[in-house]
């Protein structure tokens, strides 16, 4: 288990852009996929030094726009460069409208053993509002294809806090999703950057604004319902059947090292966080054979900040942070170092502590930012 690293591969292509999206992804650039795959291989070759690999996550964008051949090339390269055990978790994010059974079967055979389907909603009206290009019928089909192709670890993404969506509609959506019996569920509140089309529609008054109280209501409903359906709530936004927690994402929450390749991908290695360029053309140009390639930014995370990040990310997990673990890793006794913060937050009902660990309360999970910022070190430049 020593020296393990997780690998994230960003695939920044989409058929069209969703109305809420501010991820790094490009529509109408699918012709560049071959060149992009070359660049990915080049970056991997440059940056991988035979580390032990624990997981692979192909995220996007829409990674399912890659052909099985292209996927195969990437995964073969990875196998060559890393030291890989058989049990590595390999996740592919897929858009329900882009997959069929032969494709998923091929992908499964390449060693992808976890499929994350961007279902987002089980309500067609909502899908339209979000600008998703698939229907709920396509979502059910995709689930069927996945099962038929042999995927036994299936995750579904759903969004709540949708403008104008009632609690009843949300409950119905959840129920439909659970009927697919996914091993894993990620529920994300809709959050909009200033410049996305859905936000403009809200500003113009064509769509009602996001109602934070309704969003909170829907979250708590989901918590109760999923618990009754035997899903373990293991992170603020994630639920899984026992044993099906996403190993790749655990790396982020535990602040363990990861390598991210592709446009705008981030890495965290030896206390440094690096980020690649956000521009597709620049990335393809940069990671060409013979070209000098390097991440665009490289930030050294100071020990103080590492501590803060470990707490902020760690508290996202429902099991919270074990005092002993933390002490082992950072040499810091949480209760004495942050005694004042912990007391204040306990009084506010946002966190709870036991002899062994500290974690968010139910209320705290909805108000996490109020907890997190208190653990940040003082900024030097103020």
């Amino acid at each position, binding site marked *: 288990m020593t020296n393990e690293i997780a690998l*994230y591969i*960003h695939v920044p292509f989409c058929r069209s852009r969703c109305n809420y999206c501010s*991820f*790094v992804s490009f529509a109408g650039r699918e012709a560049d996929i071959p060149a992009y795959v070359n660049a990915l291989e080049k970056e991997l070759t440059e940056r991988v030094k035979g580390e032990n690999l624990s997981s692979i996550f192909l*995220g996007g964008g829409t990674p399912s726009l890659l052909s099985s051949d292209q996927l195969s090339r990437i995964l073969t390269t990875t196998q060559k460069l890393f030291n890989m055990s058989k049990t590595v978790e390999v996740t592919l994010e897929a858009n329900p409208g882009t997959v069929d059974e032969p494709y998923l079967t091929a992908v499964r055979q390449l060693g992808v053993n976890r499929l994350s389907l961007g279902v987002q909603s089980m309500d067609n009206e909502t899908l339209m509002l979000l600008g998703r290009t698939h229907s709920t019928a396509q979502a059910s089909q995709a689930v069927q294809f996945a099962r038929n192709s042999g995927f036994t670890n299936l995750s579904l993404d759903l969004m709540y806090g949708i403008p104008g969506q009632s609690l009843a509609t949300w409950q119905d959506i959840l129920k439909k999703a659970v009927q697919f019996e996914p091993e894993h569920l*990620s529920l*994300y*509140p809709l*959050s909009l950057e200033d410049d996305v089309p859905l936000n403009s529609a809200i500003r113009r008054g064509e769509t009602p604004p996001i109602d*934070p*109280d309704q*969003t*909170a209501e829907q*979250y708590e409903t989901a918590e109760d319902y999923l618990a009754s359906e035997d899903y373990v709530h293991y992170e*603020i*936004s994630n639920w899984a059947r026992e044993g099906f927690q996403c190993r790749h994402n655990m790396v*982020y929450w535990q*602040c363990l090292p*990861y390598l*991210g390749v592709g446009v*705008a*991908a*981030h*890495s*965290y290695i030896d206390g440094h*966080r690096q*980020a690649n360029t956000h521009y597709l053309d620049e990335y393809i140009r940069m990671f060409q054979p013979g070209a000098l390639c390097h991440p665009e930014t490289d*930030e050294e995370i100071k020990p103080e*900040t590492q501590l*803060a*990040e470990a707490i*902020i*990310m760690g508290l996202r997990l429902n099991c919270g942070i074990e005092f002993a673990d933390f002490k082992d890793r950072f040499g810091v006794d949480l209760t004495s170092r942050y005694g004042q913060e912990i007391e204040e937050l306990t009084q*506010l009902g*946002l966190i709870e502590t036991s002899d062994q660990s500290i974690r968010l309360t139910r209320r705290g*999970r*909805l*108000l*996490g*930012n*109020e907890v*997190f*910022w*208190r653990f*940040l070190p003082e*900024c030097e430049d*103020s």
Partner: protein
Amino acid sequence: MDQSLTRNFCIIAHIDHGKSTLADRLIEMTGGMRGDDIREQVLDSMDLERERGITIKAKAIRLGYEAVDGSIYRLNLIDTPGHVDFSYEVSRTLAACEGAVLVIDATQGIQAQTLAHIYVAMERDLEIIPVLNKIDLPGAEPDRVLDEIESVLGYDPQTVVSISAKTGEGVPELVEAIVRCVPAPKGDVQLPLRALIFDSHYDPYKGVMAYIRVVDGHIFKGSNLRLMAQKTEFEVLDTGCFIPEPSSLNQLLAGDVGYIATGLKSIGDCQVGDTVTTASKGAKQVLEGYRPAKPMVFAGIYPTEPGEYDGLRSATEKLSLNDASFSYEPESSPLLGFGFRCGFLGLLHLDIVRERLEREFALSLIVTAPSVRYMITKTSGQTVIVTNPTDLPMPTVIEKLEEPWVSISVVTPSKFIGPLMELVMENEGIYKHTEYLGQQSLGELGQRVKLEYDMPLRSILTTFYDQVKSRSQGYASLDYELQGYRESRLVKLDIMVNELLVDAFSRVVTPNKAHDVGKAMVNKLKEVIPRQLFKIPIQAAIGSKIVARADIPAKRKDVLAKCYGGDVTRKRKLLEKQKEGKKKMKQIGSVEVPKEAFMDVVKLSS
């Protein structure tokens, strides 16, 4: 130089009619500066003046001009501010001049301050040169405005100079008119020195720089001088004129406009309006001065962080060195800690002082609701002056309460008389007089009129000016002048945030308006205070009686969604921003109130 070749004049006008732009053209024409060096409104040298596009402080500048008659004239030009808050600057610069160029915007015609300024200039017997500006604009209506000038001000349209201060058209004719019409100064160089201080600023090296008009006698570097009223004596460290930078001269003679560096440490030691004479064998008779401008509007200024009090103290001291019309004295508030009760000429002045303090001294400030000066006679017979609403005594001990009233004049197309009349009535105004300006109608807007009212000064300290603009679709202009004190019946309205009385929000209102004002204030606060971890009641009260209430519900959700592709840094930065944001809040009990809330609430109409 022969005094007969000197012309001292100022440029006066309603706000934005183009005074500073005209000054640019005059500077350019007379070769005072090269064309390239002239940025727009070059005399507006303060950052704030440039950003806001307005003149705040009057400026004197000397120009040399070769006239058509072949003589070289010395022109001393003073650009003045147009905003009503700074009217006193105009009246004092008039005392340094023999002539005034009255600029009237050809798209707007005569406005409230046009009238206010011209009346003062006439009282002082100045030669007035009316000028029609902005004739290059498509919206210009020269004929109509000339008719207005003729019928209201009595000038023959033939004698009005039409110009564009932007393109320079007509400006050569204007300078000739200045040389021809403005009388040369008449002082006597042989008589004992008498010079009038019409403005000043503080220079860290040379002390107070007094802007003066020499009436009789002369001044040279090293002269020992005396201020006749204040009896201060000092040596002239430097003398000269502005071109527009200060430029040293050997001497200033009777009829000249220029500056003297006094070495004095505070503007208070060298008051504007005083007469300068020689320390020995000085003049006997002082020049007619003018009363220094008195602050009319008061507000508390507090540091957001109590630790910044010392910084605020030294900043207010420094700022007041350069601004004699700004007053301050220490006060303290149970919630805001130590600060100052400051006096201003008006709301624009207040806003400018606040911005300069924050910007030039890197402070973060909270400004309380502006107030006027109340004179209160208690039942005990004792009289007290109150400039802070929290100090208003209980109604039961007040025998008599008096507050300042102003006479206001509004110039507007007749179409808006109704809405404006209504607005004035809502604000406790009393109608006095209507006067039609000119004969021509503005089409469907009707003819232009000047409306006169009396109103409590208190009523114009909120959104009155904005509402005059909005109810007249931007056409009406407003001028006002302090008139005197009148008796009133008023009460103090308090605001409680989470059961805590926030003195900064307290204001004085008429009893019948308490409910409406209270409601507006609590609703505004509900809108500007972000939701927090607990429910926050906001109440408006008179004494112990609650007149309005609004509750801010507790915040339920505030958590970041997923981090894409491991971008933990971005997540952390968002949290850092949140943390920084908290620091910018003012803690009121356990409630965090954004600084802006103070201003937003203050700006509500009463």
